[in-house]
């Protein structure tokens, strides 16, 4: 999505209210437009300021690629979360699901001697299956998503413990898996390429296909969507399957980056992922969970913390930064909504 080039002017019909012309002849209130571009502008400001302050370390290819690569897995996990959130449900099991995918793809190859492609398919299949069970329990049985996915998260965490016996798989990891996560394509780190491809595909589905419209309609009103002929239950299940599958993809990529199967790798992703998705919902399309807002949120947090660390901030600046950014963003967008 391109940031619209806009001109601010007074609306002749309502002199008190400033509006902004968007490409395509539409107009919108200045406050909404400001919310739309606030986060991208902040990201830009970070890049400019940190580059100016630390020209030798910050604005270098090496630093930028590391910064991006570090966040590719988080970005994929955030994208997985978008699907349930768009249909108005929560999925708290994606991080555990990511962790299971990491230990499955590393364990099946190194411990059980499976060929890599088969192990990848199995890991993704299990992740999607977890999503399917979540979705069926939530949409068909009608159990609260919060409870279902928290229980699922606990079950998956237990399964990880059972499979790994608490050990880290680091021997006999196939080189092919490591090659999936390391190195680059045309100078871009591979994980970043994966995240970008997934983001583009998801954006296309959500913005340009009937399926995307249906998912947003379900999130807006299950009753109205159902009475418009949208198969609400089936698509809710699909959203959870998609979330599970993408969490599995994030796990395989993470396994490739780490080159080992650590049973504790999943859970720490959960809160940063939620923080980024909610932060992302204040940008680009304010008030709506959206792909590019999410991607920009992930980048903003990462660029901000990397820059601050380079300026001498301690390591724990990251969660502080994340929490503060999220709170400020939701407060500002709340405030702008009231202006509307």
């Amino acid at each position: 999505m391109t940031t619209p080039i806009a001109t601010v002017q007074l609306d002749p019909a309502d002199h008190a209210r400033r509006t902004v012309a968007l490409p395509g002849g539409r107009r919108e209130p200045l406050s909404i437009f400001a919310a739309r571009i606030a986060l991208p502008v902040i990201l830009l400001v970070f890049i400019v300021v940190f580059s100016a302050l630390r020209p030798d370390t910050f604005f270098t290819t090496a630093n930028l690629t590391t910064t991006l690569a570090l966040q590719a897995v988080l970005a994929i996990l955030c994208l997985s979360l978008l699907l349930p959130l768009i249909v108005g449900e929560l999925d708290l099991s994606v991080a555990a699901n990511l962790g299971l995918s990491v230990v499955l793809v590393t364990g099946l190859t190194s411990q059980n001697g499976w060929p890599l492609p088969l192990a990848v398919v199995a890991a993704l299949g299990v992740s999607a299956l977890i999503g399917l069970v979540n979705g069926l329990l939530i949409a068909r049985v009608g159990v609260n998503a919060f409870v279902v996915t928290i229980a699922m998260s606990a079950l998956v965490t237990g399964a990880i413990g059972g499979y790994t016996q608490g050990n880290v798989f680091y021997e006999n990891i196939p080189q092919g898996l490591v090659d999936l996560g390391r190195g680059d394509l045309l100078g871009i780190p591979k994980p970043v390429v994966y995240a970008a491809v997934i983001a583009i595909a998801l954006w296309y589905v959500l913005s340009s296909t009937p399926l995307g419209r249906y998912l947003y309609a379900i999130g807006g009103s299950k009753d109205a969507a159902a009475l418009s002929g949208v198969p609400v239950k089936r698509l809710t299940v699909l959203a959870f399957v998609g979330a599970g599958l993408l969490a599995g993809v994030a796990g395989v990529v993470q396994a490739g980056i780490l080159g080992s199967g650590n049973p504790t790798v999943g859970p720490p992703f959960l809160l940063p992922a939620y923080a980024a998705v909610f932060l992302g919902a204040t940008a680009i399309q304010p008030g709506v969970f959206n792909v590019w807002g999410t991607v920009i949120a992930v980048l903003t947090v990462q660029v901000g913390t990397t820059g601050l660390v380079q300026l001498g901030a301690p390591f724990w600046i990251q969660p502080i930064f994340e929490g503060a950014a999220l709170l400020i963003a939701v407060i500002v967008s709340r405030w702008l909504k009231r202006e509307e």
Partner: protein
Amino acid sequence: MVHDADGFRTVLAVRELSKTFTGQLALDRVALDVRAGEVHALIGENGSGKSTLIKCLAGFYEPDEGAAVELDGHELAMPLTTTQSARLGMVFVHQDLGLVPTLSVAENFAIGRGYETGILARVPWRRIRAHARAELTKLGCGDVDVDLPIWRLPIATQTIVAIARALSSAEEGAQILVLDEPTAALPDAEAELLFAAVREVTAQGVGVVYVSHKLDEIIRLADRITVLRDGRKIETVDGAGLTEKDLIRLIVGRAVDVSERRPREVGSRTRVSVRGLAANALRDVSFDLHEGEIVGLAGMLGSGRSELARILFGAQRRRAGTVEIDGVPARLDSPAAAMRRGVALIPENRRRDGGVLDQSLAVNMTLPTLRSFTRYGRISGRKERRRVDELTRAYGVRPPMTSRAFKYFSGGNQQKIVIAKWMNTNPRLVIFDEPVQGVDIGARAEIVEHVRAAAATGTAVLVISSEIDLMLGICDRVLVLREGAIIADLVNRDLDRAAISELVYFGHPELIAPSDSKEGDRS
């Protein structure tokens, strides 16, 4: 003490009560006198102003300038507030009762009053239970177990608990009790219990304002009856000796504006054929709808009319029965399946069911027909925009802003959007559930034209409405649904309001010749 001409003590006197909603007069200088110890019924059609009047008295709405309300000789400050009213002795029990179902009877009494606490903030449960028991005894219900949670009690008893609690909330003794549709959710068998309690209340000298649309109750219970029509008080009559027919005449009043009726061509081909349909509230419902025919479905709330609509649209399962559309059996097990067979439902509750509030007019309008705008699976923005612009213009949506969120449109314009959205599916059967409810006068005429236009395309149209005028104005035939069964199938040639009202309110199918007689002129 205020006494009226007949020497009765007047406890509640309402004068010049008006209420305007965005330019529309909902109540027009209404006056009301309620005597001590009487049951004073308030009757009128939907939209006659009953509930607006109650809501003004309860302080939900602020009446227009100039209204005066006196309670036992004290002029009340405007706007009224529930706390002021309760202090001076006017209390309310609304249809939803306002009880917490999971808490016990005693606890519900306590939350109504605010917990009084003893040493160490301890709640004096024994005193609260005794208080609840004493208040219930006054209504002849001393045997209710005050430790039972509310949901375990029969609905009549729940209502009585709500009444007892409301009466006890008046610190200096209750003078007026307002009961707003107290029997709406009550099984008939339990009504007797409630009536006995109401009589206990009046025996204590409390004036009861009783709002209900069940005429048989009013005949049995009311000492006097005030009739509202179009926001005006028509008259106050003595209840003694009145029949339900008299009441209907009072409620309905004016004759129908026949000029609205227009002869129309109705096709002979059967579009929809329903046989032996049964579900929760419906039993053995059968009827046919023809090409281009507008058929009204009349019936009280709870007669099963909305359920019938939801079943035909696949939003609810039927227990038995078949539906054929254009001669082919239809399973109708989901709205999507019903849509594929050409059924469209314009639902009663626009804000909940009609549209996705936060999304734009355009997104709402194309939701059921998105696939017709795709090319290789991708929505063609240009194609969609063009069609949305056409529909917005054709259906006169104002303002014609297609990117504006659905929720910002007025009720009438929301309805036009929903109609456009469904007519774009080229339906064979369109069901309009209360199409003009909550719609301003101007939009009303436009929507009526849209209903006629829908039929003109050859679609079968089913119109559900509480407004008998609307039915008489636009329908070719009227089906009367009562207690889940179709009790009359009437050709709208020389129908009048009274005939339909009688059938709707207490069902006398034998008074009117069945419509089978006209089968001849159709085939």
